[in-house]
């Protein structure tokens, strides 16, 4: 699996000061940076930039066995045509391949992953692989007004990021070996956070948090019922959470430890640092990338965990609206070494640091590439330093939208 955490990022402490957010509350978010989508980046460029290194690591025979490509997103650019068609084209994959897209808010990455796992396990096409790319961006045009929108929504800006995670699923799992059938899912209708308009988000942060906690508990209980002999503290050496912001994960972990294990505060704190914090590192630097966030956290866990031997990771995925799932898999030191070849941390370190003025200019320009744009040529010289920083890395960018059709180009 590989992560693309953006070309440019913003220091969110600086943003919080600029927006005059209450400092104590901001600290509770436990966020450090967020990736910001540039005008010539869209969910396709993020997806392809995440998937390219994964595909490039394959032989051409292996690459030709990718028979399913699912994009998982809530940042679609067309109601009919899915992002996967562009991704397929840009990656040059075999045409004997299923192409489609999945949506269920932040649960989409898990939905795609589980579909891929089932496809491989079904052996209807023995040896076939599936490529799953969860990709989401937020350009931060918040729906204004309305009584149900809480003031807390202002705290969504520092945590809303941009990024993509690509997973290759096959019958030879090196990095994360799925526990087959160990899945507890739980969903129901609730109006917590949503994207009811093409480019804007709306939500009730309190309701969303309560729903997340309800799901965290019930998805795990269903997992425990199905698997048997499961203990929240002892069965998983690491835990990965959907991470809208770090503070939420800390709260959810505390609630679960109190409820499932009757743990006391000191034990909870120690457990949090050992089992949960490794998975938060990348999330704190990219921000909430919706459908891709739980996978971003999984990549962070695999890269940053101290592994003495095979270790089980428990994953909790939640998508507003809502659907959730608790599932697990095993990682090994060998798999970790293999995963670390993608050098995600140094990719994140190499991003361009935006100034507050540059960030504001990006927000003002967001309209230029909004949903339904028919013709545009984004200015790649918009923030010259940002383009330059990615140019030498051979990244995909959006060259033009021509009669709704998107044309991409590799930087060189």
């Amino acid at each position: 699996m590989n992560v693309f955490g953006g070309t440019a990022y913003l220091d969110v402490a600086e943003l919080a000061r600029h927006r005059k957010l209450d400092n104590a509350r901001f600290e509770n978010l436990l966020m450090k940076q967020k990736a910001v989508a540039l005008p010539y980046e869209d969910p396709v460029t993020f997806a392809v930039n995440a998937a390219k290194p994964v595909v490039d690591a394959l032989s051409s025979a292996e690459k030709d066995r990718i028979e399913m490509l699912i994009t998982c997103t809530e940042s679609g650019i067309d109601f009919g045509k899915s992002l996967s068609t562009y991704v397929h084209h840009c990656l040059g994959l075999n045409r004997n391949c299923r192409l489609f897209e999945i949506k269920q808010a932040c649960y989409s990455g898990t939905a795609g992953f589980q579909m891929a796992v089932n496809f491989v396990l079904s052996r209807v096409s023995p040896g076939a692989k599936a490529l799953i790319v969860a990709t989401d961006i937020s350009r931060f045009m918040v729906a204004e007004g309305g009584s149900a929108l809480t003031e807390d929504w202002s705290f969504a800006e520092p945590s809303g990021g941009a990024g993509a995670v690509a997973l290759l699923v096959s019958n030879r799992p090196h990095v994360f070996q799925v526990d087959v059938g160990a899945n507890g899912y739980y969903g129901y209708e609730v109006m917590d956070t949503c994207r009811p308009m093409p480019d804007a988000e709306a939500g009730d942060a309190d309701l969303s948090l309560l729903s997340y906690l309800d799901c965290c508990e019930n998805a795990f209980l269903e997992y425990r019922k199905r698997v048997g002999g499961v203990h929240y503290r002892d069965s998983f050496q690491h835990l990965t959470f959907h991470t809208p912001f770090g503070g939420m994960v800390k709260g959810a972990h505390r609630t679960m430890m109190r409820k499932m294990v009757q743990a006391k505060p000191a034990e909870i704190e120690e457990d949090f640092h050992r089992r949960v914090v490794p998975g938060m590192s990348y999330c704190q630097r990219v921000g909430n990338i919706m459908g891709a966030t739980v996978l971003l956290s999984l990549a962070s866990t695999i890269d940053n965990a101290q592994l003495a031997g095979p270790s089980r990771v428990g994953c909790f995925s939640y998508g507003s609206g809502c659907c959730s799932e608790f599932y697990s898999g095993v990682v090994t030191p060998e798999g970790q070494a293999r995963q670390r070849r993608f050098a995600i941390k140094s990719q994140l370190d190499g991003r361009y640091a935006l100034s507050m003025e540059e960030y504001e200019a990006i927000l003002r320009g967001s309209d230029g590439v909004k949903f339904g744009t028919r013709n545009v040529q984004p200015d790649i010289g918009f923030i010259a330093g940002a383009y330059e920083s990615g140019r030498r890395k051979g990244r995909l960018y959006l060259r033009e939208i021509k009669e709704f059709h998107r044309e991409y180009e590799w930087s060189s």
Partner: protein
Amino acid sequence: MMSKEREMMTKAEILELIAKSAREIIPGLEGHVFKESDQLSALGANSLDRAEITMMVQESLALTIPRVELSGAKNVGDLAELFLAKLKQA
């Protein structure tokens, strides 16, 4: 808590449970006298704290309902009313 006892709970008793939980979660509320119009957010509780306070009250009442059914209260008086209504249904 027995179901009979639960049914007999008054709003004042639930308010007291809310106050007790809030004092545990938010430092500096020890001496605070709670009024129905108090808003937990104004008293320094962030959304995680509010969720935790609600859960603590729910646990003391042995009320097993989804947390989302306890959202939407504007102040602690509202929240106590919500709990009362749920206890009646339980």
